[in-house]
């Protein structure tokens, strides 16, 4: 069997880089060099790796056990398996690109230490593992690592508010981690398997779910809600985004949306014959969409506004996935990819504003267009990109979401998607007006802040948005084919 050997490098290499950077804590020059070199490698590895599966320590698939086996299916994997396909390639390429942007922005700042960069690399490694893993326990371990790494990134801000946000995040992370592991344990007790492909086959072969397996579904769904920041946990997530450094918040929202995609696809694969799960996902997603956008409209601080909008958009992604047809699932995944780019631009703009004005409170800002015309222009473009105006990428995915909602028999949800994009537009254009156009301001911009790196990065990202908007099929077709092939 073909064993693709480069696949674990996507997880192992960022971990090695994290350890190295962590050792070089006080030495700024070596941290810079190591970070730049590892960034280049990190970007190159997903592009160079061939599609395939990696079987850890060479445990091949067993043929069948003799009569002693009590398993429902004869043919199982014996070790941890990572699989790498077109969908994983797209997600990982985007993840590494945005992570490298954030690393570049971090090492240009004076205050940021080696430990901070190390945490960024650890979170990169864990999200890669979550996207790649085909083994449920491996998946769980890396969600826990991701929780700690994200909390550490927020703690690094050294304000009391961010400490409180991180404490809340970790307490609820403990609840959700416990419930995911309990669900895995119950599934292991019932079916004796941990591999997702095998579990899916075994559950199909075993007929209707028993009460114990139903409990497992409910517990894993609680974990899913937490990892993706949906309804009861949306406050916790938006608190994290709001209290992190805005550049890091761009990374955090990207990570949680990708974990949402990976975990939803895993859940839909495992419990593919269980339609109630999709309805529950849809219900929580709709609730999150509405509450996220309503709360976003009410905010007067740019970071808080953007974090609620990010939560609402995550709900939109989950809505596409919860509709449950292959078309809607791929539209949801496509929307996750598009939305992550435009949200990242907006958070980077927020980072620039925080750096040059030392505040993000909307009623204190104003007349920014004279100071930074380029940033203003790109924020406007990103605003119309995120609210689904044609030349940009979110238009393509929101169109597909509406089409799939109508096809699945819920035209009302199409209306809801349109309303949400209108609300998002109103919320962010309000912020745009108050920062860049509103006459009269009482704070001065810091003339020393040039923000060359910020400007370069947001120009690159808006060009990427435009490119995906003009050629959507380059991204969309591989996703659709993967989803159809997975048979969720």
């Amino acid at each position, binding site marked *: 069997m073909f064993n693709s050997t480069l696949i674990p490098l996507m997880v192992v290499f960022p971990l090695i880089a994290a350890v190295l950077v962590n050792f070089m804590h006080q030495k700024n020059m070596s941290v810079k060099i190591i970070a730049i070199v590892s960034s280049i490698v990190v970007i190159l590895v997903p592009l160079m790796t061939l599609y395939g599966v990696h079987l850890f320590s060479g445990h091949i698939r067993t043929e069948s056990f*003799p009569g*002693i086996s009590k398993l429902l299916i004869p043919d199982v994997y014996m070790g941890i398996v990572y699989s790498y396909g077109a969908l994983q390639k797209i997600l990982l390429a985007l993840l590494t690109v945005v992570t490298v942007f954030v690393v570049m922005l971090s090492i240009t700042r004076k205050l940021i230490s080696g430990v901070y960069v190390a945490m960024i690399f650890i979170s990169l490694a864990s999200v890669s593992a979550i996207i790649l893993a085909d083994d449920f*326990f491996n998946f769980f*371990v890396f969600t*826990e*690592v991701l*929780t*700690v790494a994200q*909390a*550490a990134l927020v*703690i690094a801000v050294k*304000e*009391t*508010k961010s*400490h*409180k946000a*991180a*404490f*809340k995040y*970790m*307490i609820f*992370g*403990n*609840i959700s*981690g*416990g419930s995911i*592991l*309990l669900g895995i*344990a*119950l599934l*292991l*007790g019932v079916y004796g398997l*941990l591999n997702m492909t095998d579990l899916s086959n075994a559950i199909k072969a075993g007929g209707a779910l028993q009460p114990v397996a139903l409990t497992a579904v409910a517990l894993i769904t609680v974990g899913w809600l937490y990892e993706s920041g949906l309804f009861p946990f949306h406050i916790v997530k938006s608190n994290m985004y709001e209290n992190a450094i805005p550049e890091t918040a761009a990374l955090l929202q990207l990570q949680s949306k990708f974990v949402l995609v990976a975990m939803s696809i895993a859940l839909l694969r495992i419990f593919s014959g269980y339609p109630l799960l999709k309805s529950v996902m849809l219900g929580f997603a709709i609730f999150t969409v509405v509450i996220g956008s309503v709360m976003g409209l009410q905010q007067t601080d740019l970071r808080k506004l953007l974090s609620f909008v990010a939560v609402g958009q995550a709900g939109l992604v989950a809505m596409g996935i919860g509709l449950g047809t292959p078309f809607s699932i791929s539209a949801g995944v496509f929307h996750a990819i598009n939305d992550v780019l435009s949200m990242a631009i907006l958070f980077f703009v927020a980072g620039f504003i925080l750096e040059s004005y030392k505040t993000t409170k909307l009623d204190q800002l104003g007349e920014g267009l004279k100071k930074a015309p380029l940033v203003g222009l790109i924020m406007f473009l990103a605003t119309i990109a995120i609210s689904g105006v044609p030349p940009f990428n979110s238009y393509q995915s929101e169109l597909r979401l509406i089409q799939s909602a109508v096809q699945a028999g819920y035209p009302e949800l199409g209306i809801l998607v349109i309303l949400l994009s209108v609300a998002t537009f109103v919320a962010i254009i309000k912020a745009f007006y108050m920062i860049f156009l509103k006459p009269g301001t009482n704070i001065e911009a810091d003339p020393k802040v040039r923000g060359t790196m910020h400007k370069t990065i947001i120009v690159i990202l808006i060009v990427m948005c435009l490119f995906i908007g003009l050629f959507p099929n380059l991204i969309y077709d591989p996703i659709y084919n993967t989803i159809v092939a997975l048979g969720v």
Partner: protein
Amino acid sequence: MEPFQVGAFLTAGILVITGLWAVIMMDNILKKVIGANLIGDGVNLVLIGIGYRPGGLVPEVTHQFHATAVPSSFSHFLAFNEFANQASYSLPFALVLTNIVIGASTLSVMLALSVVLYHKYHTLSVQKIFEGMEEED
């Protein structure tokens, strides 16, 4: 299922529910952390209970395995089928080892955070730390 296994599962249920109650209802910040620890303990007990087989062999310390034994040569110590019928299931044990270590690390981060929050607010009450004083940055 064995009676002892059932007892272990019931105890695990009590642990998880007690921990959840402590996390959700208790006001003291250290009690919340204790509750988080109890949840982890309960889940570990469930996993260990799955692997139990009454009177079974312990795979890690069984005398059938010598230092020289390689997987292909199990047969001359004990037939593999016979071994598989007698040994306890050791996959969950490996999972629990991982989970104990993860739990300890998250716990230490939470404790450190609660110490930091105490130095800011001079109280351990969650009510006083998280509610009120919202306007102060």
